């Protein structure tokens, strides 16, 4: 049943109390949703602000407990994992610069998850840091630099290197490319896809950007005000969706006009070598 699922949310509801003490309101962030991510799979969770997507991310990292329903990691609830979670989960967040301590060298930041785990010797840590930086396409000498010396895209690649260093089973990417330029987005998304092929982690890719979601993921789930409106393979998003909310998002992102209007420019221009 849940054997091949790395992480699953079963009928999960999450409520928050908000407002001043004399006028408390209950806000339902998530309403009995079911989600699952298989081993080695990327699930893109698409939603706008207020959809509850960040809440799902926090639940998957064990930072929150559901008000109802269960969150299972490898078939067991988070409470059963007490203390043994270290290194199995990692996250890459939205703002490249704020994810890195400005006072620490890159190498120290990347090494942190491993150092905190306590069981790795210094030389091994150092080797791992170099290895991780190489896997995200950064030279070893980057270790000595500080975050302000790097570009946004480079900072985000460092964040990915840090996320990978403990060989986690699940990485939660929370709007990880939203703050990056067009070309840098492509670079980082390609990197995530390639690394997943090589390393085999599962990923939860939280985003408001449908184009990024269908590009990087194999499965998609669309969230609207705490309810799951659509889920299925990512390839579905290359055509107009039957669900009105999803189609609305596709139209807003211009994903439907272009496919119909013009063929992608490089297809016209790609006449090959030797012309």
């Amino acid at each position: 049943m849940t054997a091949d699922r790395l992480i699953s949310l079963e009928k999960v509801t999450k409520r928050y109390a908000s407002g001043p003490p004399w006028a408390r309101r209950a806000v339902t962030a998530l309403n009995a949703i079911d989600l699952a991510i298989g081993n080695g799979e990327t699930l893109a969770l698409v939603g706008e602000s207020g959809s509850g997507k960040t809440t799902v991310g926090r639940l998957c990292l064990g930072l929150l407990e559901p008000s109802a329903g269960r969150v299972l990691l490898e078939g067991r609830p988070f409470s059963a994992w007490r203390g043994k979670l270290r290194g199995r989960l990692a996250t890459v967040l939205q703002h490249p610069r704020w994810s890195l301590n400005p006072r620490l060298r890159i190498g120290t930041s990347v090494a942190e998850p491993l150092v905190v785990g306590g069981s790795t010797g210094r030389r091994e840590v150092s080797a791992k840091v170099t290895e991780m930086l190489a896997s995200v396409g950064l030279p070893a000498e980057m270790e000595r630099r500080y975050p302000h010396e790097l570009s946004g895209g480079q900072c985000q690649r460092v964040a990915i290197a840090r996320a990978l260093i403990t060989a986690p089973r699940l990485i939660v990417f929370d709007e990880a490319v939203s703050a990056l330029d067009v070309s840098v987005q492509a670079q980082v998304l390609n990197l995530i896809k390639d690394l997943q092929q090589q390393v085999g982690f599962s990923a939860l890719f939280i985003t408001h950007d449908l184009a990024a979601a269908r590009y990087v993921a194999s499965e998609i789930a669309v969230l609207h005000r705490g309810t799951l409106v659509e889920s299925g393979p990512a390839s579905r998003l290359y055509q107009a969706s039957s669900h009105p909310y999803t189609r609305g998002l596709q139209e807003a992102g211009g994903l439907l006009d272009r496919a119909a209007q013009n063929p992608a420019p490089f297809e016209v221009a790609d006449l090959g070598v030797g012309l």
Partner: protein
Amino acid sequence: MTPALAINDLAIDFRSRRGHVRAVDGAALTAACGEVLGVVGESGCGKSTLGMAIGRLLAPGALRVTGDILVDGRSVFALDDDALRTLRAEELGFVFQDPIGTLDPTRRIGLQVKAALPGRGTDREVEAVLFEVGLSDAGRVARSYPHELSGGMAQRVSIGMALARRPKIVIADEPTAALDASIKSQILDLLTGRCRATGAVLILLSHDLHAIRKYSDRVAVMYGGRLVETGPSSIIFTRPAHPYTAMLLRASIADVPIGGRAEPIPGAPPVLEGRCERCSFAPRCEWTEQRCTAVRPEARFIAGREVVCHRAESVIAGVRAS
């Protein structure tokens, strides 16, 4: 006929303790009445500086090195303080990225809209402004504070305030970057609609290729402080003549068909310290040849648009460089 906006060979430096950074390096642009001109570029290309320069709204460390900006034929840099204030109030309108941050958090919306109207605005006029931007519950909105509005509503208010005095030129700097996807197109529809209705030129600054493509009549692609390709949006995106435009389109993940792979542009954008005496894109460009690293390209008119590139003919012929 005099263009509503003309920017000639504009160069702007920023001075700091560490030296000079050249943000705009010889930008040239014109815009005619009533058109929507989209300026597209990634961060650091200088588009915000360019937009702000139109109203001389630059940071204290900024220095105009050469060139000029003409609004309706009159030089913006030659104006004295009073004339400048009049220009900003009467002829220009600005819409910024974060509406809630742009509005005064301590004053109700109605009062702020009144301040944007000529003379002492009346409540009736405030309501008219809010209606025009699609806020039908004008009374309630006028009584609210900025933080009580959603991002979309606040941006509508900003647009209303920017257009209140029927300016000739509206400059919108990433007006939808902070808004949800479903609201973006509504806001851009509103902005372009209102500008067309009032005959104002809209200068739309954005890194969002698709929004620019959809809403602009003409497009100017900005890189390294220069406008490297300018022309009708219908042809620029389908048959680009500048390598940066072509490579940017290849890097756009939204344009990649299923199973395809986007191609990021190698390298990083330049940080200029002065006039760039060669092509600033050359280090990253697929079409680079000897000329590109030695001679500063000048604007040429090719296939219906202006391009700043030595190799434009090859790019437009669709020959992919090896």
